[in-house]
């Protein structure tokens, strides 16, 4: 039997009178502790930072950056580049894209390149990786939301891929399309944007040596949240032009539709070149927050690439063609 006899209960085990009397105080303390814990947990569940994302794999034989893609600015940390993303197919919460895309499958992966080309072809991702040796490309990345990063991409000129399919003379634009898989991408089941995500460039923009297809960053393959396995990077345009997880590239003869322009034509134009003098209706584009820095920096025309790309837009009114 476990029931103790009275004489077995030590005097030290008897509840002290002062605690007995202050039962009310104790209950109140408990109430306070329980409610504040609950409130704290509620706050945490609504504001939590996402879990760590999938890690990349080392890419062999990455060549150092060509002169055009060198940049004497501090690189943004790998953690920030990979845990602060806009990838609306997964979630609109930038801190949680890495978590939401953890199980994204990027192999096998095929990219269909066609339209006005002499040699249309469905490329396997491994064939694309063989088109041109991977190079490091250190670019500024400027989001339309007025934040920016410096990212050491790994990739190669988009022109190399376009050369491989031989565009016809009628081809004037390049249209890109992202994967839209409702099974893997929760927001594709919603109508917050028209899916699949589509983007476009004029052919001369696409052929510019700065425009790349990125396959990695910091010497490793792209994690899903950054657009694995293959994404566009056009450093002189706002980030949303640099379409992620590409499955289709089409050469066309007229300006292709682009997702953000379809969603809000007043705010997002086809060109969307970084331009501190053309305000977004909802926020100024004159300054930007470089992730990891305190304070703001002035935004540079064409994101600091004016000397290399301004000639593409000679004679165009950039306020009209925003």
């Amino acid at each position, binding site marked *: 039997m476990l029931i103790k006899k009275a004489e077995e209960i030590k005097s030290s085990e008897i509840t002290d009178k002062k605690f007995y009397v202050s039962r009310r105080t104790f209950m109140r303390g408990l109430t306070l502790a329980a409610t504040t814990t609950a*409130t704290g947990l509620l*706050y945490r569940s609504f*504001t939590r930072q996402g879990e760590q994302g999938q890690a990349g794999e080392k890419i062999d034989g990455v060549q150092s950056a060509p002169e055009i893609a060198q940049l004497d600015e501090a690189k943004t940390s790998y953690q920030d580049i990979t845990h*602060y993303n806009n990838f609306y197919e997964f979630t609109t919460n930038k801190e949680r894209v890495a978590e939401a895309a953890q199980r994204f499958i990027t192999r096998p992966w095929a990219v269909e390149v066609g339209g006005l080309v002499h040699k249309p072809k469905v490329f396997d991702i491994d064939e694309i990786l063989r088109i041109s040796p991977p190079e490091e490309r250190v670019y500024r990345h400027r989001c339309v939301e007025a*934040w920016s990063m410096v990212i050491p991409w790994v990739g190669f000129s988009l022109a190399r891929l376009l050369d491989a399919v031989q565009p016809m003379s009628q081809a004037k634009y390049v249209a890109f399309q992202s994967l839209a898989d409702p099974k893997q991408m929760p*927001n594709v089941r919603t109508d*917050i944007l028209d899916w699949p995500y589509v983007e476009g460039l004029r052919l001369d923009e696409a052929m510019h040596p700065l425009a790349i297809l990125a396959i990695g960053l910091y010497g490793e393959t792209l994690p899903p949240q950054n657009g694995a396995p293959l994404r566009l990077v056009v450093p002189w345009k706002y980030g949303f032009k640099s379409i992620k997880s590409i499955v289709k590239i089409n050469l066309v003869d007229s300006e292709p539709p682009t997702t953000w322009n379809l*969603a809000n034509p007043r705010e997002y134009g086809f060109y969307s070149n970084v331009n501190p003098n053309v305000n977004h209706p*909802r926020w100024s584009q004159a300054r930007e927050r470089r992730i990891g820095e305190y304070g*703001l920096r002035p935004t540079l025309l064409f994101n600091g690439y004016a000397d290399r790309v301004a000639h593409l837009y000679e004679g165009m009114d950039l306020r009209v063609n925003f």
Partner: protein
Amino acid sequence: MKDTRFARFVIFVNSLVPLALLLWDALNKRLGANPSEFAIRTTGVLALVFLILSLAVTPIRKSLALAWMIKFRRMLGLYGFFYVCIHLMTYIWFDKFFDAGAIIEDVAKRPFITVGMASFLILIPLAVTSTQNMIKRLGGKRWNRLHRAAYVAAAGGVVHYYMLVKADTREPVAFGIALALLLGYRIVNKYFPRWTQRQPARAQAGSR
């Protein structure tokens, strides 16, 4: 509940928990890649939450006949104003770095900031007249009429949030629905109080 002093103390302390955690995370550099954006967004959402909680007091009190709930309304409303002030301060500091010209330009040119600022201005007289003394000085009727503006300010906050998001409007829409339900209750209650109010037990017995 006759004595609401302890309950009010519990609400008072709980309402500070989000701010305490926000500051704690900021000190420990756990606000993510863009701490300013995180702080501005979080304090803005908290402001809306408290404004809506304060507006929920009267419908809950009337529909459930919990007269003592009224004792929480002023504090919740003032916490709403408190978080609005912190929200505004984080914006002035970490988004504008005290650049008055940039702030004026924002208020003048960006409708979502104009709406947000207007809602803040509406809340000032409400906060000022929240004391017992001011209720007496204004008289219950006038005070009530003035404080209906709380709905305008909260609606302004929801619109401010809605205009800010680029595409995913689900969260501001949810706040809007909550606010519309509360306002709907007040309107129905004005014309058909018998549908919306439960009489306190004592009053029911007395009326027989």
